[in-house]
């Protein structure tokens, strides 16, 4: 009885959380390098349309995933070029990226509205999949769910255990000092931005290939912004962002099943939940000013001018 309800609920949570995991972990790497890219929403929606379009054309959702990552990466390159080489304001440029991305995705997706695709296939692990309850949950997801867990591990390892991760964090904490000991601040930040773009693109690809295998204008519906809030919520730590994303995924369960429990609430009120919870969570985290100050990269949002 419990298994019959809990397992499908957990499956929904996984599907709703995975796009947020990709986008939030990508943005953590970007912000750790000292760059605030507010264009996550734009990169995500362009990733979604890129992945969908390529899947329609090739019939292969795996090529679609790669296309989604690549679309996000291309868009983030614009941001990197403007902020790193032309010293533009990061907040304004990030907003521009979102406005442009939403428009571009609507333009590119115009001919794909209403088309259907084969969604990303669920993997089937022999033997393990047959475990009652746990089997489908842990061993029968599509590969992107596993990829999202793998990326959380990889990014944690990269940031904390590798020389280049240390360099990236140094650039984010004090770009002048990092520059003076010979690190290329601009190049490290550019790679971080491109990685963040590809990750946001992957999150978008998951939306249009697995979450709802369709192209709908504005289908990211603020998830890019929620991912940005998750970064603050997670105090810039990948694993916390991972669990934060699952917390948010959990809210969608309330949204989907509240009416099933006989709760009579207008659907619009339920749809507000993720946004309201984001605000509440941000308030709870931000009121601890000290914690934000010690965990946020010190150079976050500041332009670096190599000639002083």
């Amino acid at each position: 009885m419990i298994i019959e309800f809990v397992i499908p609920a957990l499956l929904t949570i996984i599907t709703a959380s995975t796009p947020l995991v990709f986008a939030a972990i990508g943005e953590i790497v970007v912000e750790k390098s000292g760059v605030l890219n507010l264009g996550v929403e734009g990169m995500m929606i362009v990733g979604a349309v890129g992945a969908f379009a390529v899947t329609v054309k090739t019939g292969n959702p795996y090529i679609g995933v790669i296309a989604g990552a690549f679309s996000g990466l291309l868009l983030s390159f614009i941001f990197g070029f403007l902020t790193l080489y032309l010293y533009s304001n990061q907040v304004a440029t990030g907003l521009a990226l979102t406005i442009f991305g939403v428009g571009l995705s609507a333009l590119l997706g115009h001919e794909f509205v209403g088309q259907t695709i084969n969604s990303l296939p669920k993997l089937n692990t022999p033997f393990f999949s047959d475990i009652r309850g746990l089997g489908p949950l842990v061993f029968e997801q599509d590969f992107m769910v596993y990829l999202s867990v793998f990326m959380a591990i990889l990014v944690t390892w990269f940031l904390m255990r590798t020389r280049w991760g240390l360099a990236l964090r140094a650039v984010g904490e004090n770009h002048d000092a990092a520059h003076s000991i010979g690190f290329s601040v601009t190049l490290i930040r550019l790679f971080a931005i491109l990685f963040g773009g590809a990750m946001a693109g992957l999150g978008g690809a998951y939306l249009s290939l697995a979450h709802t295998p369709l192209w709908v204008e504005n289908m990211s519906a603020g998830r890019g912004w929620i991912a940005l809030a998750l970064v603050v919520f997670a105090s810039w730590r990948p694993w916390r962002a991972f669990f934060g994303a699952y917390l948010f995924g959990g809210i969608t369960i309330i949204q989907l099943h509240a009416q099933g429990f006989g709760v009579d609430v207008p659907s619009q009120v339920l749809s507000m939940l993720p946004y309201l919870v984001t605000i509440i969570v941000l308030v709870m985290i931000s009121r601890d000013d000290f914690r934000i100050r010690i965990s946020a990269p010190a150079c976050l949002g500041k332009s670096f001018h190599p000639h002083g």
Partner: protein
Amino acid sequence: MVFKLEPRAVPSRVMIYQSPIIAVLLTLLAGMVMFRLLGTDPLQALDAFFIEPISTLDGIAELLVKAAPLILIAIGLSIGFQANVWNIGAEGQLTIGALFGGGLALAFYEFETPFLIPAMLIAGTFGGMIWAAIPALLKTRFNTNEILTSLMLTYVGLLILSYLIHGPLRDPDGFNFPESRLFHDSALMPLLIEGTRLHIGFLIALGVAIFAWLFIFKHVVGFQIRVVGLAPAAASFAGFKQKRLIWFALMISGGTAGLAGVIEVAGPIGQIVPVISPGYGFTAIIVAFLGRLHPIGVIFSGILMALTYLGGDSAQITMNLPSAVTGVFQGMLLFFLLASDVLIRYRVKIN
């Protein structure tokens, strides 16, 4: 040949005003490439996009109808942006303002009084301020990032509109369509030119612009805002109250966005509908930057951005291009503007 950026000793005042012009020209060039890629004749498309819509009196009237909300919102936003207060939730504040003002029109549905319109304008402004008060309170009290909260509240505001228009505000004789009753004549903005949709909202926008101009350059609070933007450290030494400025910036920008919302529902729309604004709240961000965060500059950039909306509609009708082209144009314009702005502080040197 290598290009190098060399810092200028003093930021170029001339470039501040030349950079938007460069950005517009680059956007037009990139637009021609885009139209070519979409398989249309670029010159014909540019004509359909930028010339044809304003070749009639009706077209010019429509241009000013669309410019009014953009100018209003952008004036409010530019005051905040100067003080480093990033309200990006104007779309939500516009929606709540439209609901307050429009709600009043529906509450006094059969009243014939000249006071209804002024009351609606005040109610709309107030509604926008209430919606902007939430990020202001959270920012000043709990140090919560206003960018994220104001944006989240936009989604909440749009859902409130959706709920009300599918429920309490729905026209009782409207066959269950999600639309309110048509406003009564005394709840509609008076027209400036009969036979067009141009209404006094545009004059209100101009009035607010001039008022904001005087305020920023003549009033002490306006001076404080400029100082905070230019030299935050100096501002805190001078003892300017940071929290008061945050409240002030959000109240002004929320208020103008709410006012824009009510002039939309009482102007060209004439009722409350599920979609009140085609993204004016976000486009106004571009208008503010393109107008150099200056109230008079915003008037010109607001009219220019209004043209991209008209152009999108016209290109859709005459050339069968998707109206999303508008969003792409607007995004490109902001990119090119941010890129050209580098020339204010740097000059290009060719080695």
